[in-house]
């Protein structure tokens, strides 16, 4: 195979059809950018799940009089509740957090925001923070055992809060994947159309090639490479778009929850991780589409 010949044909082909090539590259880029966003959402969901699996607790909030009078869970009501929890096989550990500690944490969490000034130590409950050894059955067991007990105000399962976050991230992922699919169809059709147009504008060349006995590789490879090049360029633009998007929007959008450690930040490394995937998808889809188009529509 003469590579100089193929390169020359590909360059001529791409130049001959500039507007179409640009449209194809941009559509591919948008589609792959959305796929990339979806992949980043998936990665964030995984990371967040990891982050929470060893942090999630069930909080048993104590009534205000217990909270106000017991600084170290030494009095009978609190101590009783604590030992009940500790004796359960579903529970790994129980930690007591008094009003002062709750207030400190609260201030930390909402540092610099007006909410921090609204709250006084007395308005926050003391809590028993329960680490579960059995994530599945544990939360319900704790809820059943504690609800209605003397000294218990309510039971908060942090996983309910986290579930909402996961719902949100999952939604982002689904929406981006759905949009990516629609865009991918558009990209596919454009690639197919471009290959057809390209083959049509070069029908004289292809005719001569067939006539003098060029193999399928020689007649088809320029078209395939043309498609693959646009796929790869589209993927690279998509990666660039993700980087720009990270610094311009995502960092801003997530800054609050990231600094509170609710979700891990999206790093440049994450985008570097998705880029080869995008390039492979871009090149693969373009190659397959090109090949199928040549087979179905173009007599070579």
């Amino acid at each position: 195979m003469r590579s100089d010949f193929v390169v020359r044909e590909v360059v001529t082909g791409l130049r001959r059809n500039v507007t179409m090539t640009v449209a194809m590259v941009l559509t591919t880029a948008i589609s792959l950018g959305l796929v990339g966003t979806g992949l980043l959402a998936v990665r964030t969901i995984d990371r967040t799940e990891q982050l929470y699996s060893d942090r999630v607790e069930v909080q048993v909030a104590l009534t205000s009089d217990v909270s106000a009078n017991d600084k170290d869970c030494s009095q009978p009501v609190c101590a009783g509740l604590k030992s009940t929890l500790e004796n359960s096989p579903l529970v790994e550990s129980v930690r007591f957090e008094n009003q002062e500690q709750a207030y400190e944490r609260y201030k930390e969490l909402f540092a610099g925001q007006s909410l921090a000034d609204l709250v006084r130590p007395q308005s926050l409950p003391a809590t028993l923070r329960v680490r579960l050894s059995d994530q599945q059955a544990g939360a319900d067991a704790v809820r059943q055992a504690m609800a209605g007990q003397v000294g218990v105000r309510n039971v908060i399962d942090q996983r309910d809060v986290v579930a909402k976050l996961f719902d949100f991230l999952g939604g982002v992922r689904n929406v981006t994947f759905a949009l990516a699919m629609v865009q991918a169809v558009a990209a596919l059709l454009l690639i197919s159309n471009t290959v057809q147009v390209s083959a049509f504008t070069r029908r004289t060349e292809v005719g001569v090639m067939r006539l003098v006995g060029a193999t399928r590789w020689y007649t088809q490879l320029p078209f395939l490479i043309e498609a693959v090049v646009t796929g790869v360029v589209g993927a690279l633009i998509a990666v660039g778009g993700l980087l720009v998007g990270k610094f311009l929007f995502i960092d801003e959008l997530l800054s609050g929850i990231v600094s509170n450690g609710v979700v891990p930040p999206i790093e440049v490394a994450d985008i570097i991780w998705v880029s080869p995937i995008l390039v492979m998808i871009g090149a693969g889809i373009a190659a397959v589409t090109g090949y199928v188009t040549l087979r179905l529509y173009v007599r070579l």
Partner: protein
Amino acid sequence: MIDAKYADVPSGWSWAPRGRVGCQPDVHPPVASASVIRLERVTKLYKTSTRPALDRVSVAVDKGEFVFLIGPSGSGKSTFLRLLLREDVPTRGNIFVSDLNVAKLPRRRVPRLRQRIGCVFQDFRLLPNKTVGGNVAFALEVIGKQSATIKKVVPEVLDLVGLQGKAERMPHELSGGEQQRVAIARAFVNRPLVLLADEPTGNLDPDTSQDIMLLLERINRTGTTVVMATHDHSIVDSMRRRVVELDLGQVVRDESRGVYGVGR
């Protein structure tokens, strides 16, 4: 009439002629294994027509022969040539080109067949955006020939067809006759076993046609078998070569030293 310039193969020509040179058999032998082209009761029915384009055609062409394929328009001359090139497959019958069973050839081996056959057409089929040299070189590039070989061989073949010094011209800067010379150079540059020509003089005036015929004769003298479809009476009559006449898809005449129309 005969242009002395083209009367012989240039001495610089690097491909030695194969087989007998300048010696045509007066009587073509019966079907033999020496045939370069052999059609055995070939019938071609196009889906859209009721009458076969070729009807039980049997023809054998020996190595080094020059054959005119004549007949009125629609008699099946182009179909005959297209089947040899495997542009299409016969409905019935066998076709052999050298040792290849053309109709049964698997797709991936069709290029090998076409590399052994050169062809030229009435409409030249040159690439308008390539120079004369580029057009000829293209035929070698796309079958993977080394660029050193191409650089050496292209000027040689341009000399052979009488286009020395015109390698850098664009096709639209050439006369019709010169364009057909480029097409012939392109068809011949890979030294095919067979040269097929479908009405190569159809677009040319009589004098230019005569020049093209001399060139085809010269190529035939290098040992290349030539099959030329035409309905140009004067050319056939002046050359006195083998004539195969088709009518309504059937061979109605096969004479080793024919003229166009008997008794005309």
